[in-house]
Each structure stands twice: as structure tokens, then as C-alpha cells.
């Protein structure tokens, strides 16, 4: 799936893309090329769907400068493996109420897909999914993150997710007083 950016191979990719328009070539921030089937891309990502529809797909590799190769690899992986089992993103978003559509629990394979990721990879994947408008992937990854957050104390959350505590001591005390009843660790 991953193609080095060597000249010859880029040529080859182009040829392939011309000959067979079933795939879309995506270029990550660090210049790596990935191919994903057009159908899957259009189904899963509203952004890619828009680009495909708008004809702004570059055969040499559509620049996705915001997405690192690792995350893009995961995205492509997700697209290729699982395109068929997912309702089309375009379909979902064509309904205005998609925003309020209740979330469906991730399926088993989706769970596995996100479970194997490291924290960093997971966050990158969230951003990539966000950027590409991949509703379902975004849902699944967000779900995963929130699962990781469940049942943890504020301190634990800060530690796990590497978040700086920007409260002053007094503020923290105050907010703890307010919400103390809800903590698991009180």
C-alpha cells in the first residue's frame, strides 16, 4: 500500500491511477503516498468525497499536509479493510440531522482497530479523521478516548493524557468543593 516517493514509482502510480480510476492517491505530510479505493474514500470521508466530486484529486498524490504518514496509514487501513461494513459518510451527512444522530456503539472490529493503537497514534488518527470528515472513524476514536477517561480521577486523566493543570490551587480547591460529590476518589 505504501509507495515510496521515488520518481519511477510515482510514475507508476500515475499510470496506475490513469489506467484504473478506482483508487485515489493520498500524500501525507512527510511525502509518503497511499492509495485507497475511490469508493471507500468517498463513502467514508466527506472531504475526500467532495474532492473527488470536485475533481480536485491529484493523480500524483493529493496533498494532505495535515496528516502524518502514520495516521494516514491507519486511515487508509481503516478504509480499505472496512469500507463495506460502514454506511456511507456522504449518506449520513446528507441528512441535516446527522449531528444529532445517536452514536452507535463501535463494533468488534472497530474496537480492535482502535485498541491496538498507541496514545499518540490514536490522537493523530482522531485529528486525521476529523480533518477528513470521517464521521464514523471519528466517533469510534472519540469513543475510545472517552472510554480511556472513564472512571479516572482528574489527576489520572491529566497524567494519562498529558494535560497541564492550569488551575490555581485556590480554584482547584473551589471546583473540587463544588463537584466533590461526583468524584470517584473522594
Amino acid at each position, binding site marked *: 500500500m505504501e509507495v515510496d516517493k521515488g520518481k519511477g514509482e510515482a510514475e507508476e502510480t500515475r499510470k496506475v491511477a490513469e489506467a484504473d480510476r478506482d483508487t485515489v492517491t493520498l500524500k501525507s505530510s512527510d511525502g509518503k503516498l497511499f492509495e485507497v479505493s475511490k469508493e471507500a474514500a468517498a463513502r467514508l470521508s466527506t472531504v475526500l468525497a467532495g474532492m473527488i466530486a470536485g475533481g480536485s484529486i491529484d493523480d500524483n498524490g493529493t496533498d494532505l*499536509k*495535515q496528516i502524518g504518514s502514520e495516521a494516514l496509514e491507519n486511515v487508509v487501513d481503516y478504509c480499505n479493510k472496512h469500507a463495506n461494513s460502514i454506511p456511507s459518510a456522504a449518506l449520513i451527512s446528507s441528512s441535516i440531522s*446527522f449531528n444529532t444522530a445517536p452514536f452507535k456503539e463501535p463494533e468488534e472490529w472497530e474496537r480492535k482497530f482502535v485498541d491496538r493503537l498507541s496514545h499518540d497514534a490514536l490522537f493523530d488518527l482522531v485529528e486525521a479523521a476529523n*480533518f477528513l470528515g470521517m464521521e464514523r472513524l471519528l466517533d469510534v476514536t472519540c469513543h475510545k478516548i472517552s472510554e480511556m477517561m472513564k472512571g479516572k480521577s482528574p489527576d489520572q486523566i491529566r497524567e494519562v493524557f498529558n494535560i497541564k493543570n492550569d488551575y490555581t490551587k485556590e480554584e482547584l480547591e473551589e471546583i473540587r468543593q463544588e*463537584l466533590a460529590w461526583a468524584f470517584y476518589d473522594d
Partner: protein
Amino acid sequence: MTALGMASLHVVLCPEYTLEVAIRRTHTCAHGLSAASLGTVDPAPAHPHAGSTAEESRKPIGGSHKSHTRAAAFHCQARIPSARFHPSISNLPSSGLRVCVLRHPPLVGTSAPRPLSPTPTLPSHHHHTAPTIIPHRLLRAPPRRDALYLLPRQAPRRPAPGHPLPPPRPGCHPLLLRAPLLLHLARPPRAGYIHSLPPPMPRALQRSGSNSLASLLRAEPADDFVAAAVADPKLGDRDNVRHRGSRARRRSCLRLPLGAADGCRVCDCDEMDSAAPAAAPRRRPSGNDEEEEDDDDGAVQCFSWKKGAAAAAVPHRASGASGDAVALKEEQEATSLAELPDDVTEMVLGRLPLASLLAARCVCRRWRDLTISPQFLRMRRDEHPAPRRAPWLFLFGVDAGDVGWGAAPTPAVHALDVDARRWRRVGAAGLNGRFLFSVAGVGDDLYVVGGRSGGCGSDATEVRTHKGVLVFSPLTGLWRKAAPMRTARSRPVLGVFEMSATCSILHARAAAEKEKHVRRGKSRLGGGASAVYEDPHRLSLRRLRLKDMLNDDTDSMDLALSHGNSDGHESEEGQQQPRLAIVAVGGRGHWDEPLVSGEIYDPLIDRWVEIAGFPADVGLACSGAVCGRVFYVYCESDTLVAYHLDRGTWAVVQTSRPPPPRLRDYAPTLACCASRLFMLCVSWCGDRHGPAVSRRGEKVVRKVFELDLASLQWAEVSAHPDAPMDPNAAFAAGRDRIYAVEMFRIFGKVLDFVTACRVSDAEQRWSRIGRENAATEADAMSCRMKSMAIGEVMQPCAEAMRLEPSMANTALRCAAPIGSSQLFGA
């Protein structure tokens, strides 16, 4: 200024208008205002001051530049100097972006910061051009979490029904007078960016007044836009703008067919006109300077927030920005959840259960700000209802105080996390010593209705019965006051129901209005429905008027009146957000007299409206529940009366068999669960339906009866395994479970038992919740709790709730909110 996605929007306003631009959901941009790019007034030569003015007025109001966001909603205020207003909406993290021009006051929620900055006055170089906004149906949908709201400040009131529209002022577009306007910005992905336009819409769409921005943008070269194009030649050939280089950068790539955007990668979104930097001093986040350099390269980097990839993609970063670059790099070292855009963070946080959410709130300021915003709470409710999650039970009680019987009762609120099976103590300072109130859960909030205070202890302050309504929001931990009832009540019978367009509150309201007009004295003799409204032929007419009345009275609030909206998308949305209201009847008044009056509260308009009083001859109302469109009230005389919420009439339900016999010492409770109506009371063992004579020595047990709504027969459904120790056990119905809390003192120790009966099971059995730790937690909660939990006097129908010291410590009430599972589940 980098942008995640942007769109330009052309709003033509008359000069007098002030637009308040509230942008919802800024993204991670740490510097206060990604909304900075809002309200960019087109710095066309015709308006030399426009740019700077817009800049000035673009202060984030209520948001500080240092911290991320105060609330997740930003207000920008921009006086629109010109006839043309081109706010470039950029940095919109999320999508599903809509632009709405609303009437004042803003509806962004009560906690939304109010505009602070003075509106700069501007030289008026107006060009009154034809509007490019396409006017639209009234905006009725509730505020969206990712909408951009444009709120005209002095929008004229809607004309009274029947009156013609006022003549348009010169220079105004007449349609604007009918604010609100609503623009959809295409239909971008929820959290993606606006790059993905749907395929071009047919031209017919724009002609027919489609309000999607996509069609709007495409309409630009069309006739509509000619006038504007004349006024500003730049606009006319917008489609070519991109080809001409950076001068026109501030035009959004949105307006370009993506294919034609040769320089436009996915992210080419720089909207700042680099040709006019002086006119519009940049309010860019300092970390984004490197993006500026990129502009010349044609490959514009939009995603300033994107740490790793963005940094990597800009290897030739200008050395001048090295300080920032270092900072950026450092951040990059450690992947942190804090770097996710706000909307994604919200998506994550929105899935948390209540307890975790509150913990997350303590993590950092940004999270707190995100999670207390009304938009977030709404999103959480709508998107992640999580039906399987168990609700929380909120137990409102009164501590006797450890200073002895004489002390005034201290209210206490305890929350039981059914899922975690733990009791938690909630601050009850907001209750202000009230007791004998009733509690109902509506949406996210708990409403404490009526009640009494004072009258206890040696100082013997006067007993007061309250009209007031207090609202506690577990999600924000805040207490607030709602509009008071019309009548002071203690221990009213409450029901929560979903309003429909035909709901009686509207009728009642019309009645009230009418009454006011006709100047008739209030006459609410028991039994009668308001006879004025019995004529079905006048109904539809009335309804129309009612809608108008609501519109007029409630300003932006009617946005949420989505039920009245027959428009496709909006009504779809509306169905997702039921509009709940409270009905309160009965209770006892100032002199402890039983009341028969009733009223309905609509949280949206924050108003109580009187309804027909209930039949006086059935005795005091004991308990009520809404089932379907009917509010059932079980009365002391074992009569079931029903108030039809749509028709606004009371009727006595004639059950085909006499109601089950019950022990008078134990208050009966009605509960509606899974659309079935149950009555819980204490009865004798065995299935006898004889007269309820004293049967001393016979075993009693708590029973659940169900009323078959078709045949109107009571049938025993299940019996509680425990002996009924607590004559004032509290019950509450969740989605498919009835929860019961019993507390009693035995051997000086308080025991509490929380049990639940799942009614959807074939075999309805009570099971204990929180057996593991509820009691110990209860002890740990406070030692006062112990003395409090005994001798509860929470009989809604108790004879004369005199505040004898020994009883004053009681009023225990369980308020498991109706619909609580939607609420507190996550």
C-alpha cells in the same frame, strides 16, 4: 490567519443594524479568538475604515485572550458600516455550520457572555446593494452546537399577527425586517471542514430560495448579485480570484469549485487579505506566524493547531518565528489530548458519564469551559443519549441538624449513581432551608417546586409557603431560580411531559391572554375546563394565533419551538429534542388548605400558566404521573383523575373495579414507566378486594398495581419482598424501572434500601441496588443524615403538615427524574 475551513458569507444589512456575531465552537487556537476572522467587513475601497473597524469590534467578548475560551461561545460584535457585510468565517472547526441571523437577544444560552465592548461608530459609506442573503423560513430550531449566529441587534419586532409588515425603510432589505434569517453553509461534515461541498446544486434551487450557502455562493455570478458586483468589482469575478493570486486570498476557497482551485489544496484557506494588513491588523495567534510566510508559496498551511504534521510541513519556517517554533516543537514532544480541536474534545467529553464528566471538568480550564457551555450539554444530551445507562437518583432530604430538634431543618441532597452504586452528597445550599417541596427532573435539570420554610425551632419564624421554583443542574452544579408559580404550594403533585403543538399550555395561555383582554376576573371553579376552547372549529385559528403569540413573547426562545415547525429539516431536528414541561397541581397553600388549582410550566419561556383546577370532590391529590398525553393524579379518596394535556380538561377515570385496597398510613404513588401506569401502595397480602377494614395482624406488603389503560382495570403486578418499613418511601420511575428508596432507623442506625423493579421484564421483581455500599455511604455522608432519615413526613396527602419539631426534620423526597436515563446516562 490560518483557517481550518472557512466560508464567506454575504449579509446585506441596512446600516442601522448591528450584528452580533456569535461563533460557536472555536477551535483549539489558543489565543482567544479564532472568531477574530469574523465580521470582516469587506475592505473594499468604498469603505476605507471598514477593515479596521471590524477588527476593533472583533474582540472576543467574555473570552480572554490568554485562556482559551471562557465559554465555548464567543460573541463578536460588529457594527456593520456598509450595506455589505462579508464576515469571513474561518477557523470553524466544525462543520455543519450554519449561519443564522436571529433576533436579539441572543439565544446562545444563559451563560453566554454578554457583549461588553462598545460598538464603534463608523463613517457611513453605505452602498445599499441588493441583498445576497436569501431570506428564509423562520428559524425555529434550537440553537445548534456548531452554528454561527448573527443576531441583529435592533431587529424590529415581528409585526402583530394580522398587521401588515411595516414598510421597508430605504436601504433596508424588507425581508430582513423579518429576521431571523438562516443560512446553511452547505452541509459539511460534522467535524471536518467546509471544503467538501456537495456537488453543485441545480440552479433552480437558488431561485427557489434555497438557503444553503453553497447555492448562495453559486448564485453570486447570477443576477442577484449584479448589484453587489457593481459596487465591488472584486466580487463579480470571484471564481477567477484564486487564479489571480494572493490579493484575493481572503475570499474563501469555499466559493471555488474545488477542481478549479489550482493553488487550493485541501487547506488553502487563508482568508486574510495580505494586501490590506494595515487596515486589518492581525489578531493572529503568535504561534501562527510561520503560516504567514507560507502564503507566498501558494501552499498554504491552514492548520496552525496541528502540531506535528504542520510543523513538519513547514521546514523552511522563518527564523523570526523561531521562538514560537521552539514552543511548538516542545509541545509536540508530548502528545497531549489538549491539542485536539475543541470540537473533537467535546465529542470525547460528551460521551463521558456524569461522574467522569465532572472529574474531567477539574482537569483543566479549557475542559471546564467546554463542558459547562449550554451547547455542550445540549450536544451531550442529543448525541449520546446512551439509553442503557442507569440514571442517577437524587434524594432531596432534610437534615435535622445536629444542634437538636429546635434547629431549622437543613436541606440536603444526595445523589445515587445507580450505575456505580454510590451515594454522593450534593451541595444543597441553593435550597435555602426549604422543605416540603416537590421535585421533578426536566431535561438536564432538577426542579424544586414550591415548598415551605421557616416555622421551626425556638425562634419560631413564620412558616412560609413558597411559590418559588429552584432549579438545580447536576451537570453544572449550579442552582438558579426559575419563574415562580402563580400559587404558593407545598408538596404539589408534579408531572413532566413532552409538549406538543396542541398542548394545553398553549390553550391555557390563550385563555390567560383572553382573560386579560376581556378583563374578566379569574374564575376557576373546579371541574370545568375552560369552556371558551371547546369549539373545535376555532381551534386551528387559535393555534395559529398562539404560535404568533409565542413568537412575539418569547423572542429568541421560540427558536426551540421546533414542534410548531413543519419545515423538513428543522422538524426532524425538533423531534430529537422533546420540549418538556412541568405540570403542577394540588398541594397545600399558605394556610395549609388543600389546593385544587393547577399550572403548567414551560422551561423554555420560563413561565407558569394556570390550567383548569382539578375536581374538588376527589380529595387531596397524592401523586401524579404523566402517561402518554394524560396526566394522572391519584387522590386521597382512591380516585384516579386524569388531565388531558392536549385538551386541557379533567376527567375522573372510572375504573371497572374498585381501586385496590391500601393501608392509609402509606402514601400511594403513581408512576409511569415504559408507557404503563403503575400505582404503588401498601396492601394486605393476598388478592382480596374486599372493603378495606382493619385487619390487624395480617401481613402487609408493598404492591405494585398496574392500570390497564384499555380496560381500565387495576391488576396486581408485583409485590415488594421487603416489609414496608418506611411509610414514606420515595419512588421514581426511570425509563423502564421504578426505583424505590426506603429509609428507616433501626437500633439507632439508619438503613436505606434502594430497590428497583424492572417493569419490562416478564416477571417483575424488585432487586436491590446499592446493597453493597449505599448504607455505609449514607452513614459516611453525614452523621446528620442518620437523624434525618427517620420519621420522614413526606406524605403528600398527610393531614396537616404541621411543623412540629419532631417532624420538621423529614421531608424526604426522591426525585429520580422522569426521563432521567436520557439525562444522566452517558
